[in-house]
């Protein structure tokens, strides 16, 4: 169904705006979709572990990863691999703290991740004003995030590799336990799964992916800035919901989320290309989401 919607969107785009389907156009859209898709992966993993799972700190953690990444670049003379690793590690650390609060102390995810986001955002404002960190992305990072090789955007290859890894993980021994934690924590616990560990692990992973995506985002926009990841906080939840991740937990169909990320990006760019005002864009976005929810509901009834 999602693929059908995507094809319909492209067809509408081509009809109202000739040239909407061009290889350069599509490559551009996929680049933008890749970032949305990565943030959608964060939500997919945490929502799947249930307990009203949600990670509203992905934006702040991504911004953290961005600044940590660019600072590492400045310290290591432009060592891009080190920058990406350190940014991912910073995200993992922030995510682990979320996981500790949520799985260890039983703080509701909505509250815990919101609180950590406000501390990280506040800390970044402070750090940027006091330490004046380097913010420039290295040429290698720009090339990974923004350039294409043989017509294929490099970031798409990264996204593809991470998607394969995510699908493998979600169907491995670990992934099955992770989803079992979401679909029925009691049964999972009684059959020997350390549900607390898996719930915590999900937030750590989400943080790691967000930190990595933040570092990659600096390559795409060529520098780190405050509020870099903010736009992805709620949109990532939306693509996860459209992609078929059940909010009650237990299901993690990441391929659906990938489709949803592309649909969302194409829809937004179509509305922007039509020069629709912000008001109209918001209304169409809201109605689309509602339509999806209702359709899903009706399909369940039938």
């Amino acid at each position, binding site marked *: 169904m999602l693929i059908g919607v995507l094809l319909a969107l492209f067809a509408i785009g081509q009809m109202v705006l000739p040239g909407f389907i061009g290889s350069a156009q599509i490559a551009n859209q996929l680049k933008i979709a890749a970032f949305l898709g990565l943030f959608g992966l964060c939500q997919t993993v945490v929502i799947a572990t249930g307990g*009203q799972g*949600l990670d509203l700190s992905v934006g702040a953690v991504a911004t953290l990863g961005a600044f940590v990444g660019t600072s590492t670049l400045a310290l290591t003379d432009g060592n891009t691999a080190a920058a990406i690793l350190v940014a991912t590690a910073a995200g993992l650390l922030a995510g682990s703290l979320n996981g500790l609060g949520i799985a260890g*102390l*039983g*703080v*509701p995810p*909505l*509250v*815990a991740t*919101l*609180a*950590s986001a*406000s*501390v*990280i*955002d*506040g*800390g970044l*404002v*402070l750090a940027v*004003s*006091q330490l004046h960190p380097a913010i420039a992305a290295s040429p290698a990072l720009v090339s990974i995030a923004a350039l294409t090789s043989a017509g294929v955007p490099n970031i798409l290859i990264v996204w593809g590799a991470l998607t394969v890894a995510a699908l493998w993980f979600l169907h491995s021994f670990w992934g099955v336990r992770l989803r079992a934690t979401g679909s029925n924590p009691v049964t999972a616990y009684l059959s020997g799964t350390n549900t607390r560990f898996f719930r915590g692990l999900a937030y750590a992973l989400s943080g790691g992916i967000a930190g990595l995506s933040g570092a990659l985002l600096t390559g795409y926009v060529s520098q780190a800035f405050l509020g870099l990841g903010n736009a992805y906080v*709620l949109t990532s*939840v*939306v693509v996860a*919901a459209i992609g078929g991740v059940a*909010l009650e937990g237990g299901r993690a169909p990441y391929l659906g989320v990938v489709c949803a990320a592309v649909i969302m990006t194409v829809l937004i760019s179509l509305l922007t290309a039509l020069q629709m*005002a*912000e*008001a*109209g*864009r*918001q*209304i*169409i*976005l*809201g*109605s689309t*989401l*509602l339509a999806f*929810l*209702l359709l899903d*509901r009706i399909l369940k009834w039938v």
Partner: protein
Amino acid sequence: MTPATSLKQNGLVPVLGMSAVIVAVNAWLQPSFFDASSIASNLASLAPLILVSVAQAIVILNRELDLSMGAGVSLLNCLLASFAPYSLGGVPGQLAATLGVALLLGATNGVLVAVLGLPSLIATFATSALWFGGALAIMPQPGGAVGEAIGDAYYATVAGVPVPLLVIAGAMALWMLVSRHRVGRWIVVTGSSPAAVFQAGISLIRVRLGAYLLAWFFVFLSAVAISAQTLSGDARLAQSYTLGSIAACVIGGISLRGGKGSPWGALLGAVVLGVIGNVIYFAGIPSSWQEFTKGLIVVGALGFIVFEQRTAR
């Protein structure tokens, strides 16, 4: 039930302590804190967040969430600011029309969640985009003018009592009235056990719809209160209220699992959140430290609440 056990049962003890401490710190940093004029101006600026937090509390007690309240307050604010002076028979007519729209927005959320059974988290996120779009459609740029009578009335006093305090008192009196009526009981009981309510032969649909409608009456009050202060319209005015109201509820000891807590907790939670800003300002903390300090205080408050709830169990 003695007042003490009632406080304990509703999880109000920690938030009472916290608000007392934060108010004391504020009074210590700002010697004029208890002057009549400073109390009046603090109440005027706290009232909108308090009212929207009480609205959120009603929805959360019902075991749902409403992520569209911030956008809703902004939409109602833009609507109020868009009326031509003396249209609709002046201010009373304009307020009535705004109330009508507020109840319509609440009913929309209620129908999506209660009748169609959509998860409230995502459904109200979708409607928040609709409300924000609507607010932008009415007012693409901040502007317009709210009837000055509303502003004048808001800053007036009745028999020495500031009007914002009267509005808050009236709102809480309304909640106390409803909570003693069976409808209020049903709202809270549905939050703690929907199955029990269903088996008692009560329509879950009507209770949930009722909770959203009641909550949006409070959202309307919040929108009027904030409009009376700004006297103009801004589609982004109240964006922070959505998450602010949820934070106020959690600090106020209301369980996100529904059924436990009291709107009084949300009121105190909103006071804590609002006064933190004052304290940070009067403590002379450099601006670059403010966000971080505020975040840490909120995390500390949340940690305290969670710890308290765990030991209470």
